[in-house]
């Protein structure tokens, strides 16, 4: 509270926004079939989807870390030409409708795609409609979250710490792992959690690129979508699991989003 009274013309629409955002979530909780809940989420179909979701989202987050963290560093230090353009390109998947990402991935990595065709013809490797395809689609959509968050972290880290480490004789590898990364740890954790949350919720690119096969490419969001057509209560129960995960992410990042003003 900052002791300021809100004028009505801001208060009313603001509260409408709040109600609009919160009511569906409350309804979801209210509609949850609590008696059937344990049975639904322990059913083989649900467990398979949950397991697949966790494995693919963690794999995507791992890939994003291995390749995205170096990319974030390159952008922050502006060592490549046209950094501004590159940053824009990296953000595109963030803004692109996920289904478009899926189509783009098919064109690139599908059996008749530019790269995918080559891999299929020469090495008999296919990505679409496989679990690896799910990981690829999810990484494509989720990695920009990690890159953008961490780039900010790298940028706000003052150069003099890395300079100090260099004058103390540390190699560039040692500087990166012993000084740079520990100092941007909060941004790295936030970026990884956001990336993972986005990966876990991925739907459009996955269903387009990898399809919807139970046990192979049917992740939790796809299972929810499928269940909605047959058994509503199953869809609600599975949705609740994803909602709990989202709230968990929010709690984990409370330092970023739950504070009242910027520190």
């Amino acid at each position, binding site marked *: 509270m900052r002791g300021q009274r809100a004028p009505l013309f801001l208060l009313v629409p603001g509260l409408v926004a709040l109600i609009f955002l919160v009511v569906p979530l409350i309804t979801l909780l209210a509609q949850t079939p609590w008696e059937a809940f344990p049975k639904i989420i322990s059913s083989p179909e649900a467990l398979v989807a949950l397991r697949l979701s966790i494995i693919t989202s963690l794999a995507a987050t791992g890939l994003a870390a291995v390749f995205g963290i170096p990319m974030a560093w390159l952008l922050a230090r502006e060592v490549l030409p046209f950094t501004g353009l590159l940053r824009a390109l990296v953000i595109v998947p963030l803004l692109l409708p996920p289904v478009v990402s899926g189509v783009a991935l098919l064109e690139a990595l599908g059996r008749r795609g530019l790269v995918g065709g080559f891999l299929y013809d020469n090495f008999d490797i296919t990505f679409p409609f496989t679990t690896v395809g799910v990981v690829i689609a999810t990484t494509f959509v989720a990695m920009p979250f990690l890159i953008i968050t961490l780039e900010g972290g790298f940028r706000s880290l003052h150069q003099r710490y890395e300079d100090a480490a260099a004058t*103390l004789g540390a190699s560039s590898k040692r500087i990166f792992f012993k000084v740079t990364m520990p100092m941007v740890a909060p941004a790295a954790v936030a970026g990884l959690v956001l990336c993972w949350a986005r990966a876990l919720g991925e739907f459009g690119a996955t269903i387009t690129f990898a399809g919807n096969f139970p046990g192979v490419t049917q992740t939790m969001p796809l299972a929810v979508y499928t269940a909605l057509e047959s058994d509503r209560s199953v869809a609600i129960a599975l949705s609740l699991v994803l909602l709990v995960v989202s709230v968990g992410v929010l709690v984990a990042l409370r330092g970023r989003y739950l504070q009242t003003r910027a520190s």
Partner: protein
Amino acid sequence: MKILANFTATRGDFTLDIDTIVSAGTVTAVLGPNGSGKSTLLRVLAGLQGIDSGEIVFGDRVVNAAPSIHVSPQDRSVGVVFQDYALFPHLTVLENIAFGPRSLGASKKDAQTKAQSQLNSLAIIELADRKPSQISGGQAQRVALARALATQPSVLLLDEPLAALDAQTRESVRTELEEQIKAFEGCVVFVTHDPLDAMILADRVVVLENGSITQEGSPGELAARPATDYVATLMGVNLIRGVALAGVLQVEGGGVLQIPQQLLEGEVLAVLRPEAITLHLNKPEGSARNVWPGTVRALTPMHDRIRVSIDASPPVVATITHASVAELKLSVGTPIWVSTKTLTIEAFSKSVFAST
């Protein structure tokens, strides 16, 4: 060992142009206003920034020779105390100091033993397990110095080592820093904008203005013979340029002064000490031969007296007591007579600086 620095380094439209020698066992202060290139000079010596022409030699080792040789900071054997110290916030004090030896290949145990002995010699062993956020500014300064010295560098560079401290801590830390850097056997170069730090800590002062060295010498030489307005202002003296002939100085920009150096001819610099200037409301009659009118432009209180800036030909600064200001009822715009005894003026030929 000696540092021989003769180079230019350009960044954007700023060029640093340096030609100087630093001897081992001496402490050199680089004194200059903000934006003069002091920090750039330090970064270049540390190897954190390259040069565009010329060379830098540490002892018999060429560390920079444009455009082909650039020895990285890791391999230069320099210790740097950064402005605001740049202690690693995620490491303890002990780990900060052990970082250098560890980077150079010492085992974890050896590095820590070394760090402990550093902390012991600086009498701050009790800080070993604290994080940098849990120690005071003065302590951080000591830790930063200990960290820089832990790799046993042959060159020690300090960037504004006392600027981050408040006035009270400064005094005590300065005394301590003086002992430590005078005990250091290699070359010490520190950058400061504070003439007091330069006067107390340094054997030799290099004045940097707009990227170039404008004067070099001992603190005493600078005070006695400031070569530029910047140095004169820092030393608190009036510096007057002009052309001398037979004891008369025609001041650049107007005015005439009698000077005691009868034999001096040609372009000269004259030093007028502010405390040797007397102010009068009416034209004084007496033995003072230099008397000229002006108006008060500004009054600046110092701790025990007041600095009066006077618009006149030549313009001067006088320091007088609070009582005198009250007695003369001085305020901005007051018409005033300035006088000074001829014998208090020191004039010297401008050419003495041409040799540096």
